[in-house]
């Protein structure tokens, strides 16, 4: 079956008419966060109650992707009036239905005019919380697959790449390599077989953006991959997704089946000569598989150990063929860029970091959840305006970005705009977008120890500096927090960090010292008080406090 533009419009029109037929539409968040506080049961209850009242044609109940404010789940939104309810229980169902068309239920109301909702600019997450991720028709109704159609029928592959280059989009996986450049390299590589890989192995502890996008809007990623396939000359794609995200896996598989049935994946897509298929591969719990050569090894069925680069995957990737690897969020940015043009995208953000970035706010912050903001938003606005500040009246201490490869940013840099280069300047990285806020009760040595323990157990063990270095650094940090350290330990700590940074084989080892280095730089007094005074300034390290 092949589609054309009229078919797409027809599907979109039917879907829109169907939605307009309802007087009220209630969207229940069924992303993993809300599901775990019982939104599935809530949706069933709503559906039953609507059915019992005979309102089936008047009010629609729909499961949608992430609404963003995960801490207050289960969340529901009334699409027709723009009202949000938070912390909804099954017992609230009849009140909600009673209040439709009248005044909203005050006790459940989630203030929607706060900075959390207002400051966000939604590109990647534009459909999150608005469409049912399990129905391709709803995606098409929101201009879905229009970009793919546009690219295939009206643009040449170099024109597609030109738009991506012009947009200034940089890899959202963390390093920020210009996407247009990567696409160009792969498209220029000479090979009859090329691969597209979507890196959805979101291993950063504290990051859940990719999961949310895959759970809320899987078709967007599929469309982005297909466009990338057309632009680079690849006809086969893989989505490498963590096995720890069963819901995302399920929805991606469903979305792929639907896309194949409609013919937006497969052979002769939109009656052109372009063929593209996508397969899902499950990760198996290895952080290092986020590194591109390790990811390729894992898809090939081997242990996920990185290999030295060059040669880069763009020339020698999966089964030694040119391979384009981009992150979920990067691919999700592609359809709007094609639809609205690279120039439009380049108008958002800062000079060197274009567009928006999705962050997962977590830790000691009021509004934990998912936010999408333009690049260059000051950190202070993210933490205090959008995030709502620190709960319990405690003082802010640091914000950790970039996961185990990133660093802790202290208060003095709060007014820094968040973009790739500024973060790099203070010793952290953008990373995939996890943002963990720490208050005054968090001990920074303990935080550094936590990340080093992570890197130690996630180190693949291939190169000696990372294999032994992570263990040695972890031991020193244990000695410091455990009241057994000597002043010499501090020098050795710095020495080992420098060694790992300069001699490790892959990005994991090279960046593993970052949390230690940044805390050493900005919170040195905490290290010193552990070592010299045997006290933990934050009062978090039990052993130290007990002794003193």
């Amino acid at each position, binding site marked *: 079956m092949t589609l054309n533009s009229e078919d797409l419009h027809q599907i979109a029109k039917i879907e829109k008419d169907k939605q307009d037929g309802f007087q009220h539409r209630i969207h229940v968040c069924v992303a993993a966060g809300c599901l775990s506080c019982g939104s599935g049961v809530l949706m069933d209850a709503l559906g039953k109650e609507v059915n019992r009242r005979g309102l089936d044609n008047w009010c629609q109940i729909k499961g949608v992707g992430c609404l963003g404010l995960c801490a207050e789940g289960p969340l529901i939104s009334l699409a027709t009036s723009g009202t949000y309810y938070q912390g909804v229980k099954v017992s609230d169902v009849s009140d909600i239905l009673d209040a439709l068309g009248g005044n909203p239920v005050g006790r459940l109301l989630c203030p929607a005019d706060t900075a959390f909702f207002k400051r966000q600019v939604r590109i990647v997450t534009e459909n999150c919380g608005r469409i049912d991720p399990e129905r391709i028709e709803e995606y098409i109704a929101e201009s879905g697959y229009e970009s793919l159609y546009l690219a295939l029928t009206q643009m040449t592959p170099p024109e597609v790449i030109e738009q991506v280059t012009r947009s200034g989009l940089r890899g959202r996986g963390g390093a920020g390599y210009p996407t247009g450049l990567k696409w160009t390299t792969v498209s220029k590589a000479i090979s009859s077989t090329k691969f597209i890989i979507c890196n959805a192995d979101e291993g950063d502890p504290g990051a859940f953006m990719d999961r949310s996008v895959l759970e809320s809007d899987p078709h967007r990623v599929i469309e982005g991959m297909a466009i990338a396939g057309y632009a680079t000359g690849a006809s086969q794609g893989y989505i490498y997704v963590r096995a720890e995200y069963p819901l995302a896996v399920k929805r991606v598989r469903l979305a792929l089946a639907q896309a194949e049935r409609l013919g937006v994946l497969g052979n002769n897509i939109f009656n052109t000569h372009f063929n593209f298929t996508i397969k899902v591969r499950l990760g198996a719990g290895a952080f290092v598989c986020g590194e591109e050569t390790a990811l390729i090894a894992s898809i090939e069925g081997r242990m996920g150990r990185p290999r030295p680069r060059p040669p880069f995957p763009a020339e020698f990737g999966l089964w030694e063929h040119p391979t384009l690897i981009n992150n979920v969020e990067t691919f999700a940015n592609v359809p709007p860029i094609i639809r609205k043009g690279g120039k439009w995208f380049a108008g958002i953000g800062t000079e060197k970091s274009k567009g928006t970035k999705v962050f997962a706010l977590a830790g000691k912050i009021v509004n934990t959840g998912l936010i999408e903001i333009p690049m260059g938003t000051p950190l202070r606005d993210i933490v205090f305006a959008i995030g709502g500040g620190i709960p319990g009246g405690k003082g802010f201490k640091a914000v950790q970005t970039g996961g185990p490869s990133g660093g802790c940013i202290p208060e003095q840099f709060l007014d820094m705009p968040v973009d790739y280069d500024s973060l790099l300047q203070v010793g952290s990285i953008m990373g995939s977008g996890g943002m963990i806020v720490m208050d005054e009760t968090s001990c920074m040595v303990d935080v550094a120890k936590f990340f080093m323990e992570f890197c130690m157990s996630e180190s693949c063990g291939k190169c000696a500096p990372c294999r032994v270095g992570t263990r040695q650094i972890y031991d020193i940090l244990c000695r410091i927090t455990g009241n057994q350290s000597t002043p010499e330990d501090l020098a050795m700590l710095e*020495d080992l960090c420098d*060694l790992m940074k300069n001699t490790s084989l892959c990005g994991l080892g090279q960046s593993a010292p970052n949390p230690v280095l940044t805390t050493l730089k900005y919170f040195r007094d905490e290290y010193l008080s552990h070592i010299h005074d045997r006290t933990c300034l934050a009062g978090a390290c039990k052993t130290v406090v007990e002794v003193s």
Partner: protein
Amino acid sequence: MKQHPQKKVRTDLNPSRLLTFKIDERDVSAHEDESILTVARQNGISIPTLCHLDGLSERGACRLCIIEVKGVAKLLPSCVTFPRQDMEVITNSERVVTYRKKILELLFTERNHVCSVCVSNGHCELQNLAVELGVTHVRYPYLYPRHAVDASHSRFSIDHNRCVLCLRCVRVCDEIEGAHTWDIMGRGITSQVITDLNQPWGTSETCTGCGKCVQVCPTGALSEKGKSVAEMIKRRQFLPYLQMMRGRQDDSWQK
């Protein structure tokens, strides 16, 4: 039946193209597909290595062969870095030498390397590297892990306390012998080489008992039984020869 795509060789490196570049201020010439390590050794410039062994594939993992290249901030492993025209390579800057020492010291702390009781004492590559790099003491604390000795094989034994995880045994078993009895289990600091399903070596069904792994092992981790302290001398002459014989394309010797 559909096979997954055929493997390709690195086509971006042209073996017939010659180029000139500098190693430690000396002008050298090389083919494009010769690693910097190979070229350096051809010219009598020594670069320490541990996981590298002529005749086996490169891993780039021990990081001892790191070098500096002018204009490149990162240190590069010379075994998997290929020369470019007019490249300037420095193999013995203070920075590089210090890092090499530290990496070697880390390797000494990782397992229990006690030379005085080792079968390979005096013939050990790890020991030689320490002498060569002037490592007289180890600045980091020893980890003293508990590792077992497996002497279940009739002719060989493995002492994991002396293993440096260079994986030469794994590579020689796979690439030359073709048995792939060895592999590496776990990850990070808990990695360990294993035979078959992590079973005693003597019970391995795939091991041919050829002993190639023993001969390529740089330390006393793999040794022949019946050898006492300092008696284990490894013989590796077979390796380049077998690599040539097993890698040849035609069967001319059978005709």
